[in-house]
């Protein structure tokens, strides 16, 4: 099921090798695979049909480039078209330059409105705004309390009037409150509702008419299936939404819904919500989403994470040290710490699609404790010992073990690993002279990541 589209196409189009042009029959076969893949990614059936027709036209008679196999060529075209459809660039939030800015959050039950409201507040606060949150969900038990807890943890005030007052009135009063307290952005959380519930949809319309928000944001779960189109269409019909926030993207759903709604309502996706922590709200990148929908993984995000975590200057220095075989435990420690900056290694693994569902890969467990122990051992060494590990004799080993709360065996193990690493690096550095590579230093392997097309 999670076979990569590019692999599938590879198999379908294998016979094409050596052909100069893609013929109609080739395309027909390839498009069947593309169709399946998109449907499995939850792109709406009608959208898939339309999309396939577009791609068919484009690929027909297309020259097969020498550098690419026909399968790769088709994936490239599909990917490009997907990116185009998804909107070219990142879309920013709009603010009212003269008055208080209002954002209104809406969506189905369980889409993640309240959590996203908190995340948005945190982001705005960080950007120097003075946000106010408004508890407009009077229906779900403890929804107000949830917003209060979220508000408190991001240090943003929450305006509420209990669950006996109509949300329209709450919105009205919140406007007065914001004016009085000098808030410049007001985010209104609303109750989750079904798009076919006319009464509740009318309530949203009234709130919208009251506050005249600059942004009316639809929250959509990335795991949504074929119904996403109807949901987005109906919310847009009632409210004329200005954008979408795609939530729970940290799951392994391929998120075809993103493409569907883009196609049906033509509104930008402004953010993606990537976790349960309140700082996990990120801008939306169409190209990455396209790769994800095609089941090719968010490789770019991983690379970016690695780049952010690794200090470029240090990397260059490290590379030099590796080449001159001057790598000591001090360097090793700093590398470990940089690796930790990238966040839990398992998070990184999870961003590769298919890992969670893959039998062979899913048991890969990164033991973060191991890293901690290694760090503790090195930190228990003196500067001299770190620079020149050869001087670490039995007595020193005992002291280091005691200092780090580990055992002499663990210390021995680490030193042995270090020795082996050094040997390996010696080999690499002699190889490296032939094809020198810059950039990611110790995690250089990542630099070898190629997009699968």
């Amino acid at each position, binding site marked *: 099921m999670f076979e990569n589209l590019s692999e599938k196409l590879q198999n379908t189009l294998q016979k094409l090798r050596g052909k100069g042009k893609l013929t109609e029959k080739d395309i027909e076969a390839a498009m069947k695979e593309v169709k399946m893949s998109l449907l499995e990614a939850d792109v709406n059936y009608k959208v898939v049909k339309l999309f396939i027709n577009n791609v068919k036209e484009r690929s027909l008679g297309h020259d097969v480039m020498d550098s690419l196999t026909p399968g790769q060529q088709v994936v490239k075209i599909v990917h490009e078209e997907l990116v185009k459809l998804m909107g070219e660039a990142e879309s920013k939030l709009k603010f009212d330059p003269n008055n208080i800015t209002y954002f209104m959050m809406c969506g189905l039950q*369980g889409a993640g409105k309240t959590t996203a409201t908190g995340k948005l507040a945190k982001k705005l606060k960080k950007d120097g705004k003075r946000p106010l949150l408004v508890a407009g969900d009077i229906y779900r038990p403890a929804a107000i309390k*949830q917003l209060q807890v979220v508000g408190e943890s991001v240090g943003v005030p929450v305006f509420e009037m209990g669950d006996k007052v109509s949300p329209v009135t709450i919105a009205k009063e919140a406007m007065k409150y914001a004016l009085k307290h000098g808030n410049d952005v007001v985010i209104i959380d609303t109750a989750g509702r079904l798009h076919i519930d006319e009464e509740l949809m009318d309530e949203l319309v009234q709130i919208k008419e009251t506050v005249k928000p600059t942004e009316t944001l639809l929250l959509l*779960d990335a795991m949504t*299936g*074929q119904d996403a189109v109807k949901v987005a269409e109906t919310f847009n019909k009632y409210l004329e939404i200005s954008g979408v926030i795609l939530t729970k993207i940290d799951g392994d759903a391929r998120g075809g819904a993103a493409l569907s709604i883009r196609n049906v309502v033509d509104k930008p996706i402004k953010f993606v919500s990537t976790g*349960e922590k309140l700082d996990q709200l990120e801008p939306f990148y169409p190209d990455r989403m396209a790769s994800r929908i095609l089941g090719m993984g968010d490789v770019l995000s991983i690379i970016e994470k690695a780049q952010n975590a690794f200090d470029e200057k240090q990397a260059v220095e490290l590379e030099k040290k590796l080449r001159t075989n001057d790598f000591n435990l001090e360097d090793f420690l700093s590398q470990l710490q940089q690796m930790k900056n990238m966040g839990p290694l398992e998070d990184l693994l999870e961003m590769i699609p298919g*890992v969670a569902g893959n039998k062979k890969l899913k048991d890969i467990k990164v033991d973060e404790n191991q890293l901690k122990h290694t760090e503790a051992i090195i930190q228990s060494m003196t500067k001299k010992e770190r620079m020149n590990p050869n001087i670490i004799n039995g007595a020193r080993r005992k002291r280091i073990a005691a200092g780090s709360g580990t055992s002499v065996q663990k210390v021995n193990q680490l030193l042995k690993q270090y020795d082996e690493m050094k040997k390996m690096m010696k080999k690499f550095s002699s190889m490296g002279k032939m094809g020198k590579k810059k950039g990611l230093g110790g995690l250089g392997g990542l630099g070898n990541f190629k997009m699968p097309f």
Partner: protein
Amino acid sequence: MDKENKEKKGFFAKLKEGLSKTKKNFTEQIENIIFAHRKIDDEFLEELEEILITSDMGVETTLDIIEYIKQEVKKNKVDDTGEIKNLIKKYLVEMLEKHKEVETDNTKQQVLLIVGVNGVGKTTSIGKIAYRLKNSGQKVIVAAADTFRAAAVEQLKEWCIRANVDIIASENGSDPGAVIFDAIQAAKARKSDILICDTAGRLHNKKNLMNELSKLFKILDKEFPEAKINVYLVIDATTGQNGIIQAKLFAETCQLDGLILTKLDGTAKGGIAFPIINELNIPIKYVGVGEKIDDLQPFDANDFVNAIFE
């Protein structure tokens, strides 16, 4: 709508009401095709494929059905498209009935653990189940083991007040294992018939969170070996193909005994349930058709399929 009146309605009427939007769409579409095509040809089958796929059944199940229809057509010489409706209905009912549930041992104390990804309606479903079981004369205790999401405990407390059942809860942020432990002691002491445990929503691909779930099972096995433990996975009817992966990965961590399909009162068709039960061989236990406390009903394969087609 006044509550009294609503409560009196039977399961069938309610499900039909909840599914009416679904039904209208689905049946209307099928009927449209049937009128448009008198003969079963490729074009007809392709349109049928569209309808099935848009129910979130997935490509595989859809192709299975199409294949089945093709065979039936050949075998029984069906040339009337009107027959198709009955064929699909039969096929779907068979699929659901293959997974008859195992007899439960009523002499034992029961534990029901509710799991699922974020926002599918676990807490709400628990409120409704507690209410149902309480009304059927069982002594129910609820454990608030979602200690992670803000105000989840308060939400469950409110449901327990409405359902008039006991709740064992600790503060937000406390250890869910400790809550389960306390709840087991309470279930033993108060001789409850069933202990229903809420758990935090977790994405199935987060290993740490799934491990936390295993820990809860260890506690249950160790502290409450005499109880019969059931685990229900809650699936949102709007979920797409990821639902299958969700179900598979949850099944690896917990021994799943059943599904709860929520939010069937929207326009989503809940077709994802078919590949899930096919894959895991577990029955659908309840369906959620609204936000009120009595909007959860035991699942019945015939009623379910009938409500879609009638």
